[in-house]
């Protein structure tokens, strides 16, 4: 009857359901539970509470069949009313293995949410161990700059997964949108610092029973149940027990193709965070010819993440087989994967380079024939490039070999890449500089017959070589350079012409001084400025690692959002740890009165999306400034006690304040830059072309690059512009700087993005002389920034 969906009869149906929920027959109760979501769909506001009441009754049922249906009803009727679960938590856990499989999926998720909300994260789990490292970080260094540095060093030290996993767990809890919108680390909600919010898996019975009851479900016949159970273990289980989920997950791979893809997507995340989990089972990711392309690509990626010293030889041999696969796109991916592996395990560098070089030798015989061959060659050269980048000096011979083969490499992108290497490592070792003249002459000679990207790259290389050249060769180089410039200025393509003019202006001084007289050092001052600029632009490229499309969004394992990589409507991150009423009172008493109001915000925290964000940031600022939030309060005395560098409260905002502000701005902008990169990476991820953007990056000049990083717009995801905090009043002496991406396109160039920067004086004093200082690489932004700045204020 509930299926009729008429508002008129709904109250009647409700009465009937109420009655049926207490019926002696299991089947009737089950049907009553099934009817509940239908009633809920009618959106009868006035009956909401009675619906919840019925759900409560049904959850209390002792028959597994009813509980399964009731869980489904709970998930649709009142997913946030976790206290309903609280009453029956233990019994639900115990009954879980007997519930029918579809109900299990839902029930597992509900129980996980409840456990998190009730007890917080488990101290021994992966999620927590990361918080530990993080909290020790922030305790150690306190300030932002150090933290960034520390983070970097951790990354390089191979413990990469810490950072990632922190991100993962935070994404689980807060939802990635909210997490990413927090630009700076200082604004992070510091709740994880409080040990009170954590519980130990060993002592807490509730957690133990949940893990105990979900572990047999890993043997379930239903892949969805397996994944859901694995998700619980992933989040809650002690570190050493997580490995239990590996085998069942891999076993699920043997079922249908469709579920294989979904499971692999989840394994991909697990493997990134904890490569050791799947490292012993690397054979399971070997590729079958029957796999679809997406599955092959995923397997490759996972293989390259979990490769270890012991397994790399066999993995590497596999890759060699893949290169011979008829699917050339896949072969190209395999070549790229080799490069990735070597980045993680530098030991293999020499063997890999040999193989890749052999590949370039072999591929050029047939280049241009198939559409895929070019890709393979390009990927091979890109892999070589990334390997060389790790240790340029030891691979000098490789560069020479590549350069020698330049004539036979016909694929434009690959050519451009080799030419880039020439420019980049022009001063490396002692053989390369000697052959440089010949190479440059050769390049100039074939300039006209090149493709667009190669032309641009030749121009860049010529400049680089020119800048690094020694005295005696300078003359030849500058002559060649001006020859190339002349050719380029007459080119058909306007990009090339633009580039040529730009470079001409930039290098005019050095050129002029060279061309006119041999004595260069007489005009040091004149030459200085453009020279330095040019050096900055072209010298910098070594340092910049092409931003990998790191996926910064992580959703709960097994969720739809994790597969499509954006929050599907209805996606809810895990509840805030310990947000349930009971433990909150305890916490509040422990932490004292200062936190009472922040607790309140936390209380409502899990209710809805946008307001959630507000609350969270509110919460953050309250915690960090202890008491003062918003703009009306001065907070001067509040935070000076914390930031001892601004110890003197009497200081007017003068030079000193300014300096410190600039400092802050700089330090923030690095974080800010990181965020921009992640944004770009995200977008490219959404556009489904991972990796394809890499080849262009090396060729673009600085200006292009910095603007390309924020490729226009946020793809309509946002209706209202999001405001990102650049500087919050706590750090900036009461100066609050926010920025947002404006929706209109810049009138200077389509490639640039308008940024609106909002300044707000939160302190009582007058501020003056505020300047914006950007880091070198932000140059592209600078101009537009100033422009819109004028508009704003």
């Amino acid at each position, binding site marked *: 009857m509930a299926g009729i969906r008429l508002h008129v009869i709904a109250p009647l149906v409700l009465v009937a359901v109420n009655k049926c929920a207490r019926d002696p027959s299991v089947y009737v109760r089950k049907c009553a539970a099934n009817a509940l979501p239908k009633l809920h769909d009618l959106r009868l506001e006035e009956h909401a509470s009675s619906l919840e009441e019925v759900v409560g009754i049904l959850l209390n049922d002792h028959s597994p069949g009813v509980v399964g249906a009731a869980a489904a009803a709970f998930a649709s009727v009142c997913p946030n009313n976790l206290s309903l679960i609280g009453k029956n938590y233990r019994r639900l856990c115990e009954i879980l293995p007997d519930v029918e499989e579809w109900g299990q999926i839902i029930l597992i998720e509900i129980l996980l949410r409840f456990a998190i909300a009730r007890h917080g994260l488990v101290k021994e789990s992966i999620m927590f161990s990361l918080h530990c490292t993080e909290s020790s970080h922030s305790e150690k260094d306190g300030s932002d700059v150090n933290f960034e540095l520390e983070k970097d060093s951790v990354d390089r030290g191979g413990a990469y997964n810490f950072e990632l996993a922190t991100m993962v767990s935070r994404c689980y809890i807060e939802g990635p949108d909210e997490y990413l919108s927090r630009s700076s680390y200082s604004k992070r909600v510091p709740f994880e610092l409080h040990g009170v919010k954590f519980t130990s898996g060993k002592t807490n019975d509730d957690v133990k029973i949940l893990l105990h009851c979900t572990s047999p479900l890993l043997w379930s016949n239903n892949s969805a149940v397996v994944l859901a159970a694995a998700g619980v273990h992933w989040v809650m289980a002690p570190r050493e027990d997580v490995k239990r989920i590996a085998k069942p997950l891999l076993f699920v791979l043997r079922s249908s193709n469709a579920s294989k893809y*979904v499971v692999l997507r989840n394994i991909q995340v697990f493997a990134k965070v904890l490569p050791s989990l799947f490292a012993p089972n690397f054979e399971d990711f070997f590729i079958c010819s029957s796999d679809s392309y997406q599955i092959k690509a995923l397997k490759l990626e996972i293989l390259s993440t979990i490769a270890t010293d012991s397994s790399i030889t066999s993995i590497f041999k596999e890759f060699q087989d893949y290169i011979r696969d008829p699917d050339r796109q896949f072969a190209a991916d395999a070549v790229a994967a080799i490069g990735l592996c070597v980045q993680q395990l530098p030991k293999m560098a020499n063997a890999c380079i040999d193989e890749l070089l052999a590949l370039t030798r072999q591929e050029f015989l047939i280049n241009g024939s198939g559409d895929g061959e070019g890709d393979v060659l390009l990927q091979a050269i890109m892999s070589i490039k990334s390997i060389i980048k790790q240790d340029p000096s030891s691979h000098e011979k490789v560069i020479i070999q590549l350069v020698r083969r330049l004539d036979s490499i016909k694929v434009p992108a690959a050519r451009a890449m080799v030419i880039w290497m020439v420019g980049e490592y022009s001063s490396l070792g002692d053989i390369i500089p000697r052959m440089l003249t010949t190479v440059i002459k050769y390049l100039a000679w074939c300039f006209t017959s090149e493709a667009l990207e190669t032309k641009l790259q030749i121009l860049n290389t010529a400049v680089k070589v020119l800048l690094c050249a020694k005295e005696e060769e300078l003359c030849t180089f500058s002559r060649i350079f001006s020859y190339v410039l002349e050719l380029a200025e007459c080119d058909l393509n306007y990009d090339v012409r633009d580039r040529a003019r730009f470079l001409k202006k930039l290098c005019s001084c050095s050129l002029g001084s060279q061309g006119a007289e041999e004595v260069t050092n007489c005009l040091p001052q004149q030459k200085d400025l453009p020279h330095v600029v040019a050096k900055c632009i072209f010298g910098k490229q070594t340092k910049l690692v092409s931003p990998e499309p790191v996926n910064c969004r992580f959703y709960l394992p097994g969720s739809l959002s994790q597969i499509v990589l954006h929050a599907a409507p209805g996606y*809810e991150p895990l509840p805030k740890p310990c947000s349930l009423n009971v433990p909150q009172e305890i916490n509040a008493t422990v932490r004292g009165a200062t936190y009472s109001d922040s607790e309140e915000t936390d209380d409502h925290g899990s209710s809805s999306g946008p307001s959630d964000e507000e609350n969270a940031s509110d919460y953050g600022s309250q915690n960090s400034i202890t008491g003062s939030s918003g703009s009306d309060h001065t907070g001067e005395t509040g935070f000076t006690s914390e930031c001892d560098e601004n110890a003197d409260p009497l200081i007017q905002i003068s030079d000193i304040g300014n300096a410190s502000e600039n400092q802050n701005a700089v330090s923030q902008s690095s974080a800010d830059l990181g965020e921009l990169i992640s944004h770009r990476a995200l977008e490219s991820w959404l556009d489904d072309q991972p990796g394809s953007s890499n080849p262009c990056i090396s060729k673009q000049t600085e200006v292009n690059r910095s603007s390309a990083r924020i490729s226009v717009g946020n793809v309509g995801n946002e209706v209202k512009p999001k405001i990102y905090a650049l500087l919050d009043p706590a750090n900036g002496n009461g100066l609050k700087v926010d920025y947002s991406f404006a929706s209109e396109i810049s009138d200077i160039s389509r490639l640039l993005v308008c940024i609106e920067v909002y300044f707000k004086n939160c302190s009582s004093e007058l501020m003056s002389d505020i300047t914006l200082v950007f880091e070198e690489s932000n140059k592209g932004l600078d101009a537009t920034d100033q422009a819109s700045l004028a508009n704003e204020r």
Partner: protein
Amino acid sequence: MLEKQLTGHRVDRSICDWFWDNAVSHGESFKSQPVIASPTHYLFQVVREGITFLACTQVEMPPLMGIEFLCRVADVLSDYLGGLNEDLVKDNFVIVYELLDEMIDNGFPLTTEPNILREMIAPPNIVSKVLSVVTGNISNVSETLPGATASCVPWRAADTKYANNEVYVDLVEEMDAIIRRDGVLVKCEIYGEVQVNSHISGLPDLSLSFVNSSILDDVRFHPCVRFRPWESHQILSFVPPDGQFKLMSYRVKKLKSTPIYVKPQLTSDAGKCHVNVLVGIRNDPGKTIDSITVQFQLPPCILSADLNSNHGTVTILSNKTCSWSIGRIPKDKAPSLSGTLVLETGLERLHVFPTFQVGFRIMGVALSGLQIDKLELKTMPSRLYKGFRALTRAGEFEVRS
């Protein structure tokens, strides 16, 4: 196209149009995408024998739940209709709808156990078809509720009666292997299933144990299996559903050798490629290996092929799939396939190499070595006929060249 609306808010049919537009324009790559984010909905897609099963949702849900359900629907349909193709679905429209009605309600899976479904909706057969034509009564939904829905064992009806009690246990194993270009066996594992066909009256409680359960690397169970006895003693204790079902599936990893070998050799020179494939028995499993096939996809750069074998038949399909069916390996000679491939003009030598997929079947042997110890009936002392069988066939058995 078949459609079942589940929730009150109707899903517009245009989503299917969108899907087809994309499927046509993107071709294969779109078809292999299990989760698709369309502008308005998220689609889950399962393709089975040319029939696409789609499910769509607008909100967050576990994607595997959707996919798994679609797989079940496909299984049940092919079980009912005895296969899956467009005509069969067209002919049995009513049954398909009835099944969908029972299997899912308001977007949540309801009854997916095939045995229970069978009780609720009678499978199509000639008699019922004739009856429905004669009487005009097309309903084949049984009037009474199946007893199982009320019992605590939802997969079994309470009152089944058989004259003689029988239970058959089949071990069906598939061997997955990857042999690398240099002939090294990199991966060799068995994926096996324990299939049980039970015809026992009443509510029997069976327990099954293995001689060497320690070799099992990983297991998955039918919902009827109790977890506790397995955890403690590796005993499968269960109340079986009636009829045929898959009791458990297991995996045995790291096997050392394969029963047969396949040695492909490809040498290319001056626009021609010589192929030579040898097949033989590596270590004899003790039973005859039959229906041996070798299949491979010729690379796209090959213009024509001329292949001969000294045993069995070779066919080359239009999509450049070449299959060589050998059957049994004769005693006196080793079967071999040889011939030449003509490469595209301008190509000197072959640079991409096909992968050979091998198929075979061995009756009476479980290659993993798994052995059933005993099967006991706990509750009733009545006479029980027990039968055991084993079968091994090739799964994803690949030889790279």
